[in-house]
């Protein structure tokens, strides 16, 4: 994607630490996190519950600030990147406004940033088409299934053609079949837009299927233990056949072993 040409990586985290002060005392959510996500790269974060995946994502989105370390988004501070609308975000809950139709939910960021009405309508129609919800543009969120709501949230996060997509377990609440279909759709959409993606998930096959690289994290305190390149580049078409290949299974096994702390420590911090 020529319009996304940039020298700065989408995300560069150096020595990130995050400590929450709670009544029960300080909670160290992240420690010494180093991570670089290249422009156009798809990176998944995987790790046990409470290892700080959401926290890391919130730091990138400038919804919270790091306690220590340096964080850059496209070479800028996260706050600046947020003000420049460099990223789109989709949370675990779809977070749709219940009084707005699907079309109006998708168009919310465009409306806030004063895109004029006709251009907005055209863009919203395009996005609804992209996530296969053209027929439901006039429906309200409570008339949609969970998967459809997620697709609305994804369309909304894509509305302003961000160079970076932040997605926190967007498919967490979906059944396995819908989930696999959504994965295929997401990989298609990302291929079309050329955006970098930071994707949080609990599903190993999902991480391997979608990503160029999988980041494995461990809890207490949250840190990165392993980086695994899937070897499935951005150019590769991710379809059902890919799930059946031995290469895919091998990577799934590798990520699982890394997660369970099998002796693959030597490969930790590979690829940096």
């Amino acid at each position: 994607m020529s319009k996304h040409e940039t020298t700065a990586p989408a995300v560069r985290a150096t020595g990130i630490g995050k400590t929450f002060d709670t009544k029960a005392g300080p909670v160290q959510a992240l420690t010494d996190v180093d991570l670089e996500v290249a422009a156009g790269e798809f990176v998944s974060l995987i790790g046990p519950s409470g290892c700080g995946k959401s926290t890391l994502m919130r730091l990138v989105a400038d919804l919270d600030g790091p306690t220590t370390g340096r964080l850059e988004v496209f070479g800028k501070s996260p706050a600046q990147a947020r003000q420049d609308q460099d990223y789109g975000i989709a949370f675990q809950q779809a977070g749709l406004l219940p009084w707005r139709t699907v079309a109006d939910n998708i168009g919310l960021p465009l409306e806030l940033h004063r895109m004029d009405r006709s251009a907005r309508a055209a863009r919203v129609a395009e996005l609804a088409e992209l996530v296969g919800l053209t027929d439901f543009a006039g429906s309200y969120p409570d008339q949609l299934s969970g998967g459809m709501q997620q697709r609305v949230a994804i369309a909304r996060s894509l509305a302003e053609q961000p160079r970076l997509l932040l997605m926190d377990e967007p498919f967490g609440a979906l059944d396995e079949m819908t989930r696999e279909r959504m994965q295929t759709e997401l990989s298609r959409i990302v291929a079309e837009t050329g955006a970098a993606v930071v994707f949080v998930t609990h599903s190993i096959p999902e991480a391997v299927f979608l990503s160029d690289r999988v980041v494995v994290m461990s809890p207490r305190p949250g840190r990165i233990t392993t980086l695994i390149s899937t070897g499935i580049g951005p150019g590769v078409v991710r379809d059902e056949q890919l799930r059946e290949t031995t290469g895919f299974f091998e990577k799934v096994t590798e990520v699982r072993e890394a997660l369970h702390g099998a002796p693959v420590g030597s490969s930790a911090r590979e690829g940096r």
Partner: protein
Amino acid sequence: MTIEQTSLRAGRPRARGTAARVRATALGLLGLVAVAVIWEVYKVFGPDDGVVVAGHRILPRTTDLAMPHVWEMVARLLGPTTSQAGAAPLWLTVAQAALVSLGIAAVGWVVGTVVGIALGVLMQMVRVAEHGLLPWVVLSQTVPLIAFAPVLKNWGAQIEVGDWRWPQWLSVAVIASYLAFFPVAVGMLKGLQSPPRTHLELMHTYDAGRWATLVKVRLPAAVPYLLPALRLGVASAVVGTVVAEVSTGFMDGIGRQLVSFAGQASGDPAKAWAPIFGAVVLGLVAAGLVGLIGLALRSYRRGEAT
């Protein structure tokens, strides 16, 4: 959005709504008939002197003076107000008074609602305002209306701007608004604070300011809280109007009529009931008008369902 989907979406709830409304109306009428029947049955079988337990009368006398027949009350409504020649029918006199009161209550309600919404927004936007204002808002409602009314009337009587003089009805409206603003202010504040964190954080990621967040998220989210507050407010405004009319001695409204017709009850018992019916209808009409607002804002109430 295609036309077909729009009509589909708008059409389905309306079809369901019509059936529900017909049923509600039928039930309402049935209730009215039931009250009339109970009234008459008690009048026939109840003791003349009512039911007295340990010196307290717990059920009223059944004499024609205390409980006129339903048909007598209806017939009285259709008859002339006074025995003077050319007097207007009683129902018209009552309706006119009720309309005057409705107008005053409406002014009071609108002022109270505007003030309440403004206070709610102010308290949400400015933290200090919430801590500083909320106790006073709550405290304001402990000032008894009756003590307040004559004072306000006297203050009003002294206000004179050029040719314009403070009309007496305005004192009544101010008291009505004083009662109406409270539920609106409290409901509004609660509604504005109701959006979940995800919605607010989403707005933050869009770099939306406080004003945009207010308009796009907080105000729509407040609607389900605001509507019951408006209903409470209108009830307060109507009661406040009637009571304030009595205590300020305002002559044209239903409040004064309730008192003066009750004074004539010994000679004309059915007449005293006419303004009571007028007040009931007044309350229902006021509540119905507010209900229309809820209907107009119904797409903002979707949050209630999910």
